[in-house]
């Protein structure tokens, strides 16, 4: 039992801790059911959480790993930016700007609500969600052409949105008028407001029931517990200093050094290129989140994730570098930078940790943006979606096919039936990717192929995929996976290929074919179980001639 829990009944503390988790989950569920944008309610590009009065993460809702460990940073910045006497019961603050606590990019709006008990600030409830359009130079606000954050939309620098329970109309009107989709903005905003209020109410009930001191002790003890769990796992990991440098699709080279000691896990990113002139940047907070994701997967993938869990993690960055970009750098594509960093740390450690990490996965958000007039309703539609892809093989078996990247988690793809209705284009197919690659003793999982058939002239397509030139990496003698790529097949049958493009005009009859990568193979293909090879052939997951070439002679019966 930790020091913070002394004098308190451990069972009561545990009940409060579990109630904090329940409150985060309840906020999450409420927001999911009420949001307007598919990117929130379907993709679940959102997160909820509770921090203590100082902005230390006490608990977080389900959703996506990349949003765990974002809200605490936002709350801490809001506390810095606002005089303490200006923070009052019933207030709600908004931030979306990485220079003002927003962590990610301007589309991700954080709403945070201070929770008071007996006049004292005891906690915060908060959520983050991807709003469809916050203004800026292109529909959807994300442009690979942006050079400064000013081009990416309305900046909300940790300001008050609701004052002692009363919505501040002037702020809301500024927000609405800056969006191309004000109805969505309003709907998503109210979903977020309802969620933080529900969470705050639950916390107030807890304080009323158990008393403020017990509540505060429970929060503190919960974080100490998270720290103990991490430290114990850290002690069991192989120790050492590990380095990796890796060329990116853009040609720049990223470098990482990780040092694992008994009481600290240090990620050094100081030797990295200067910040990008475009939007391929991460803030220091965003880089920290990427490191936290790897750290959590290595130490305690099943347990609670709170501020304490991450205490043993140290991050070193160089201000002005791509992982610690300074104003006015643009951030729209921060997520590819973050997932690259996540994959870089993972890859750096994989060879040395004795099978604790699988081979590389398609490891891109594959953020896909398609918009234009809906041919049936005439209204403007926008698809804003990440894609599923293949995961790497591991010491335990083949990689999964068609699941979201390590950045996303409890995220759902969009059914073709829903997409065709809502977006006014046809999904002509959605299949596993038949591209070669990723073979191994344990092969990588398959990516997917989706054909979007455009039904109306004057639509646009934007994407920014990585792992296009440099493929999902293999481990222990396996073969590399296959690339993430977008192909545009024009009505006249001409073809174009893209990994990064903004605002490409597509017209009726054009097909946008998204192909996501197969994961990397694990282990020498020669060691693959003949029955597994035969099953792959029977299931048409590999062509016979390729199977023969990669795995050697086919087992008897695999030719049928």
């Amino acid at each position, binding site marked *: 039992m930790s020091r913070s829990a002394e004098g308190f009944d451990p069972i009561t503390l*545990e009940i409060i801790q579990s109630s904090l988790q329940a409150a985060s989950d309840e906020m999450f569920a409420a927001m999911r059911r009420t949001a307007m944008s598919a990117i929130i309610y379907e993709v679940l590009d959102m997160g909820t959480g509770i921090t203590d009065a100082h902005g230390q993460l006490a608990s977080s809702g389900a959703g996506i790993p990349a949003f765990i460990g974002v809200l605490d940073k936002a709350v801490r910045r809001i506390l810095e930016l606002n005089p303490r006497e200006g923070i009052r019961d019933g207030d709600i603050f908004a931030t979306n700007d990485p220079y003002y606590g927003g962590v990610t990019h301007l589309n991700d709006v954080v709403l945070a609500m201070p929770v008071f008990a007996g006049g004292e600030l005891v906690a915060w409830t908060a959520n983050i969600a991807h709003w469809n359009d916050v203004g800026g130079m292109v529909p959807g606000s994300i442009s690979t052409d942006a050079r400064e954050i000013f081009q990416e939309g309305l900046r909300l620098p940790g300001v008050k949105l609701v004052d002692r329970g009363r919505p501040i109309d002037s702020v809301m009107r500024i927000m609405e008028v800056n969006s191309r989709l004000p109805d969505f903005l309003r709907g998503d905003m109210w979903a977020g407001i*309802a969620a933080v209020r529900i969470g705050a109410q639950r916390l107030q009930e807890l304080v009323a029931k158990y008393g403020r001191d017990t509540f505060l002790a429970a929060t503190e003890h919960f974080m100490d517990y998270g720290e103990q769990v991490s430290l114990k796992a850290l002690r069991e990991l192989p120790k050492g200093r590990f380095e990796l440098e890796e060329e990116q699709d853009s040609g720049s080279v990223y470098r990482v050094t990780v040092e694992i000691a008994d009481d600290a896990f240090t990620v050094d990113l100081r030797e990295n290129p200067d910040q990008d002139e475009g939007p391929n940047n991460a803030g220091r907070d965003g880089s920290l989140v990427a490191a936290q994701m790897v750290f959590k997967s290595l130490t305690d993938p099943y347990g609670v994730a709170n501020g304490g869990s991450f205490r043993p993690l140290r991050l070193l960055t160089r201000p002005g570098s791509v992982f610690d970009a300074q104003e006015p750098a643009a951030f729209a594509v921060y997520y590819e930078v973050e997932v690259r960093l996540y994959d870089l740390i993972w890859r750096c450690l994989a060879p040395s940790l004795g099978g604790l990490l699988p081979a590389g996965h398609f490891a891109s958000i594959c953020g896909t943006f398609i918009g234009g007039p809906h041919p049936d309703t005439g209204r403007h539609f926008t698809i804003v979606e990440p894609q*599923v892809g293949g995961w790497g093989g591991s010491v335990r078996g083949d990689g999964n096919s068609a*699941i979201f990247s390590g950045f996303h988690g409890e995220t759902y793809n969009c059914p073709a039936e829903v997409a065709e209705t809502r977006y006014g284009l046809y999904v002509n197919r959605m299949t596993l990717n038949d591209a070669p690659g990723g073979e191994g003793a344990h092969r990588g999982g398959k990516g997917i192929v989706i054909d979007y058939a455009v039904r109306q002239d004057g639509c646009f397509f934007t994407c920014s995929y990585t792992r296009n030139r440099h493929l999902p990496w293999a481990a222990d003698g396996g073969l590399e996976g296959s690339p993430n790529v977008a192909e545009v097949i024009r009505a006249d049958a001409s073809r174009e290929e893209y990994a990064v493009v903004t605002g490409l005009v597509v017209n009726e009859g054009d097909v946008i074919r998204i192909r996501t990568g197969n994961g990397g193979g694990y282990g020498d293909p020669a060691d693959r179980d003949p029955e597994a090879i035969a099953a792959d052939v029977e299931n048409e997951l590999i062509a016979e001639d390729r199977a023969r070439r990669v795995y050697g002679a086919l087992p008897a019966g695999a030719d049928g």
Partner: protein
Amino acid sequence: MSSSSAANRVATDVGGTFTDLVHLRTDPATGRQEIVTAKSDTTPPDFERGVLEVIARSGVATADIGFLVHGTTVVINALTERKGVTTGLITTEGFRDSLEIARGNRPDFFNLFYRKPAPFVPRHLRRELPGRLAPTGAERWPLDLSGLPAILEDFRAKGVEAVAICLLHSYANPEHELAALERVRELWPGVSAVASHQITREWREYERTSTAVLSAYVQPIAERYLGRLHDGVARDGFAGQPYIMQSNCGVDTLDHVKRIPITMVESGPASGFWGAAELGRLIGEPNVLALDIGGTTAKCSLIEDGRVRIMTDYWIERDQRSAGYPIMVPVVDLVEIGNGGGSIASVDDFGKLHVGPRSAGADPGPAAYGLGGEHATTTDANLVLGRINPAFFRGGDVDADMPAAERALDAVAAELGGTRLDAARGIVRIANHNMINALKLVSVNRGHDPRDFTLVAFGGGGGMHAAALAAELGMAKVVIPRAADVFSAWGMLMSDLRRDYFVTRLATLTPDRSASLDGWVREVEVHAADQYAAEGIAADQLSLERFGRLRYENQEHSVEVPLEAGEFDAAAVQAIVERFHVTYEREYTYRLDAPVEFVGVHVVASAQVGKLTPAKLPVDGREVAEARKGEREVDFELEGVAAAAIYDGAALEPGMAFSGPAIVETSGTTVVVRPGDEVRMDDYGNLHIDVGGTA
């Protein structure tokens, strides 16, 4: 159905270990009702043998049974144990991988070794047909069946026994699926085949494909089982139509269920919740939180105004570690958690106490069973705290092995750093807290205040925890039904014939859409009435309830609101929209000034099948003191230790009342009455507890 033919009503329930029977006999002369229960071993794989055996054992002559209802886990077992048949899937060109791509989610998201659930049909048995519908149901290009003979030939060669068909947009227009189904039956008479629209008319191709596949996978097994059961009872002289318990809290005819047996998937919990709804009606409590505490899990559901809530987003094997498999059939809205009497208590490396979800099961069971179980369970904690009588354990059949229970608790205490009693209290508090969270999920999280509800608790462990849970939630009243341990079977006996129809129909709801709305609802109602009429149930026996699923435009999740009877006009549409705003605001705390979208129709078509009216119990006028067996020290945890009066539940009669601290012991369950609680037995033998300190 006349009352005399219904004099003998029998429910049988096939569980994992035992097949249970409840026989409710009404004396035609006095109207007095008597409940007889019987048990026999479950007999896999020929489950019907156990059913026939338990009927024989109960002493009722099969020929004398007026109403026979049956619940079975045969479907859910075949699914979870992967004992279905080799299934082939036929789907739209370009979509054979839909079943494997699924939704791409990784619920266990920090776990890099997460295993995506494997599809029930491997890729080489997933085949495609050209032909395409638009979302409106209009044909984009015609269905081409020319490849079908070769596909089926291949299926046969590969040992396929059942064929599932799911084509894109069949929820909007089933014609392509019907054509494919018909052709499959022509080409391969006798094969078990199902098309997705026969089960669900809702969109989302992965969910619908999964539904069709899982249904096909169990269909031959369930069909054979139900067929043999029917033959068996008919051979023994039962002339009527057996009814089968469904997941939507209704029963349906055996013949109808045989066609789409997947609807039985959650019939077990459904019967208990329906029992709670019926009990509520009987005793004038229309708003009920129903809680069923068994050996390994606790399940709960909310009943508002006598209505159970039926949903179609049901999944098997889904939890925080796995994405599971969706089945879009009407299932009662329930939350289930891994907390029951057999849940194991453990202390982690950091001194935190956890209860469940691991369970000691029936063998070895709790340490106190004396069967070699070494882990402390909730039951062991309740024994050590004096709540369960060690000399009246498991229905009085055996003595509890107290030294074993104490040893197990001492081990927990040593790890926690406290006394044996501290450990036992901790276990009960954590178990209660887990159940409170589950109760909140079905109430508070959906905008309902538990204080407006009565807690009806049943199952072997319901009475043990109910009063403490109610107190924690501020609920004033608890009801423990008579024969709470066989309450699910009682619920089955009270069920109506019921079918739920869900159909996706999208439109912005404006007053000028009243005619379309009318058409959509009517279409579903006519379909329901036709279906029943074909089975000999006339329109005047049928009762129809209609609901609309609405949302703000661009949202995804919908809110269900009742629709008025009769033809809709502009004013009715206005009223529906307003009803939506109100319901939405109650659930989510705000409303929007935004267009409202109609998403779908939900029609409930039910017919009574000779439901009985429970009779009041006779009263002898004895004193409550006569039911008092003695007194013992009981640890009420938060309320401290007190000398509690012990009552023999079987000796209590209507009208008797007493105060806590007390314990009521019956052969199947123990009811804990805390200090300050007041108990009264009602006319039907149910115990009403007024929870102290909540007024």
